[in-house]
């Protein structure tokens, strides 16, 4: 009954979104006053999706093996948290999560927006309903999560052990909140273009949505990167894998949008460009969903290779994106550009930021799809990897970083003060760091050296906008900006340090032998068996010393029974100065064990920076919330 209740809720939600779409069209054309009804429909539709998702969680929590999805992806012996998380660790469940977030975003838009002109809001809700309708059709016709299995399976097949990790419980929902949160920016842009009301008010309504989605994307990418780092056991934090790129591309677009929407809100400029970015950002989310769900690019994430599903999402993507861009082509002419600005002004800084981010987005996009395009045209197979991305996107990112130190110091419209003087100290830091890097680490790549110099300059430069202000009177938004920029600098420092200082050792050792890696001497004490709820393991004991004190690390090779899979569980010792990363592999016939050891100084800064960026975003969002609350209280 639970599964049927969920399915019924989904059908009802689909019907409501169709009704909402029709009514909003009628309303926007001025035939009928349907403002309240469209809002109510959007809220009801969101709640029905939430109900359906709750039902899916329930069948997974109870391991109801008469539901096909549960039988294929769960197992009665699995720890409870992974039973629940298993609900979105598969194609159908994760698409239901996607649709639920989409529905809830529409509901929140309907419930929370009071300041927008009625036509814009209702047109936006109509666009949101159109999106929901398509993805409901996809769920109901091509990936029903509630399909029954008759007779029920005696036991489930289990969840991919790589996904049996606390990270999985949070990574997909976080990313989806980001991906799908951008749908609201898309719908608002479409609504405003339809209603012909692209102005500061729209930008103010759009801003918290973009900010919220961007925070989730930032945290989702940060968490995903850390997951890949410790769970795959390859010692790297970014592989330019198509699916990683699929999450990076919406982030780049959302970052650009976040800045341009600020210009629109403050100065009523960059109208057409902001609308374009809003469309691009959500389009990139859909491209990402398509790449992951269709499995057309080989990746660790492609667990659903099904041409029908791929074609379905591709069809939806083509319809929505083409329609939005056509609307843009028709309406862009009517968007008169607003207030002018001088060459040295914050607007110019943000335009340059947007251009660079868009070019980096283009670079990533081309690199991700180039192999596919080349094969389609000439039949030749090739792959594009880190050398291309690092060589092309790296220098652009460095330029963007230099700009980041200047932009926030400039004032709107025209900068008359001598702001560049303030940058003397950061510039000195950067130059010193560059000189030291060139002299002391000749082996590191040029990009890594530039990255170190950039980080050295950017960390002080990021906090400059706060200097000379009363900390208590400084708006949350300014704090948020400074902290997010500082996070960027910290992250760059981590990336550059990882690239410049990492030492790696791959060796085969007998128990009792010692191995040197970086400043560490690691003694291989031996291996012992270990056992968990649904796995057994071979566990190595490593004793690492650096002068004084012993750090004990216990990397494992785990063997899962359902389904039978072998994974490497890296043991990572995190210290202030960096991370010691160890992996144990197989043994050979002579009693030696494969050991992979890395010493990665300051690598933790990469994710610490990501968290700081997200925290900065949260502060800015809190600023918006505080202002909205005050206005509401005043009424």
């Amino acid at each position, binding site marked *: 009954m639970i599964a049927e209740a969920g399915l019924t809720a989904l059908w009802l939600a689909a019907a409501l979104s169709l009704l909402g779409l029709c009514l909003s069209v009628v309303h926007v054309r001025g035939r009928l006053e349907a403002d309240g009804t469209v809002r109510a429909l959007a809220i009801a539709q969101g709640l029905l999706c939430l109900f359906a998702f709750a039902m899916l969680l329930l069948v997974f929590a109870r391991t109801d093996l008469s539901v096909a999805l549960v039988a294929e992806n769960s197992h009665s012996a699995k720890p409870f948290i992974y039973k629940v998380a298993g609900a979105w660790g598969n194609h159908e469940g994760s698409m239901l999560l996607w649709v639920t977030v989409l529905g809830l975003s529409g509901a929140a838009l309907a419930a929370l927006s009071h300041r927008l002109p009625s036509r814009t809001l209702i047109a936006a809700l109509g666009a949101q309903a159109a999106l929901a309708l398509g993805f409901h059709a996809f769920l109901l016709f091509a990936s029903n999560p509630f399909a029954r299995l008759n007779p029920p399976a005696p036991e489930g097949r289990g969840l991919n052990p790589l996904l049996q990790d606390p990270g999985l419980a949070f990574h997909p929902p976080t990313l989806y909140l980001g991906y799908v949160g951008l749908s609201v920016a898309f719908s608002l842009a479409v609504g405003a273009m339809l209603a012909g009301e692209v102005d500061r008010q729209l930008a103010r309504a759009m801003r918290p949505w973009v900010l919220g989605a961007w925070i989730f994307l930032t945290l989702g990418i940060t968490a995903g990167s850390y997951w890949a780092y410790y769970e795959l056991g390859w010692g790297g934090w970014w592989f330019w894998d198509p699916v990683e790129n699929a999450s990076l591309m919406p982030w780049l677009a959302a970052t650009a949008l976040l800045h341009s929407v600020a210009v629109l809100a403050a100065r009523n400029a960059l109208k*057409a460009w902001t609308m*374009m970015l809003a469309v691009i950002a959500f*389009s990139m989310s859909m491209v990402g969903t*398509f790449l992951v769900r*269709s499995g*057309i690019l*080989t990746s660790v994430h492609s667990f659903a290779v099904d*041409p029908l599903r*791929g*074609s379905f999402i*591709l069809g939806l*993507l*083509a319809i929505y*994106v*083409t329609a939005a*861009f*056509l609307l*843009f*082509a028709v309406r*862009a*002419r009517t968007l008169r550009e607003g207030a002018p600005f001088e060459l040295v002004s914050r607007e110019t800084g943000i335009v340059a930021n947007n251009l660079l981010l868009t070019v980096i987005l283009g670079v990533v996009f081309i690199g991700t*799809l180039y192999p*596919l*395009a080349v*094969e*389609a045209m000439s039949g030749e197979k090739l792959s594009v990897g880190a050398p291309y991305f690092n060589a092309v996107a790296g220098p652009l990112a460095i330029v963007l970083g230099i700009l980041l130190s200047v932009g926030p110091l400039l004032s709107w419209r025209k900068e008359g003060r001598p702001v560049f003087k303030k940058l003397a100290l950061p510039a000195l830091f950067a130059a010193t760091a560059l000189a030291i890097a060139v002299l002391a680490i000749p082996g590191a790549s040029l990009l890594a050296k530039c990255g170190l110099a950039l980080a050295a300059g950017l960390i002080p430069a990021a906090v400059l906008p706060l200097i000379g202000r009363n900390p208590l009177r400084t708006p949350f938004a300014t704090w948020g900006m400074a902290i997010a920029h500082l996070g960027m600098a910290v992250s760059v420092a981590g990336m550059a340090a990882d690239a410049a200082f990492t030492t790696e050792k791959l060796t085969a050792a007998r128990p009792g032998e010692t191995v040197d890696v970086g400043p560490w001497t690691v003694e291989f004490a031996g291996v012992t068996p270990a056992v968990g709820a649904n796995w057994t393991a071979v566990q190595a004991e490593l004793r690492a010393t650096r002068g004084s004190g012993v750090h004990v690390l216990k990397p494992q090779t785990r063997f899962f029974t359902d389904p039978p899979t072998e994974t490497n569980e890296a043991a990572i010792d995190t210290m202030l100065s960096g991370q010691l990363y160890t992996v144990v592999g197989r043994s050979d016939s002579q009693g030696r064990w494969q050991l992979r050891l890395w010493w990665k100084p300051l690598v933790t800064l990469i994710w610490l920076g990501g968290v700081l960026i997200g925290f900065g975003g949260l502060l800015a969002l809190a600023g918006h919330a505080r202002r909205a609350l005050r206005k509401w209280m005043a009424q």
Partner: protein
Amino acid sequence: MNRALRLLPVILVIWIVGTFAWRLIEPNDPTIRSQLVNRSIPPFQLAAAIPGAAGLKSADLATGKPRLLNLFASWCVPCVGEAPILAELHRRGVEIDGIAIRDTPGGLNAFLQRYGNPYSRIGSDPTSRAQLALGSAGVPETFVIDGKGVMRLQHVGPIYESDIPIILDALEKAR
């Protein structure tokens, strides 16, 4: 902004969607081809797989006459299915050399006794070193090598009866 420029995103979207659609219709062929087709085979020198018989070195393959190089193993099930076809090719006068991948003399002897021995020479490749050098990703795999030691054809997977004309044709062309 002029009209053509404004329609540019739409055109881009259509082109990208077209590329995606092509990939969905034309699923990816996961076969990994050797990069050495139409190039000289790499030098290698393999010990005899069976004590007392002849080993195999790359110079043995450049004898002025095209021949087959078959990568197989006694533990490989599809190789059993391929054995009668190799025997048929041998009967038609094709010279075949073999490389036994990660095999043991005992296993190999049993295999050859049971399914026949069409090989002139068999080299032993216990660590897959020669296999990787040839650009092969698995067993069975068969190469047509011409008289000068240049790889002319790579056949991935077992040779079926329907493949015999293709192999013979390639041998003829390599002459």
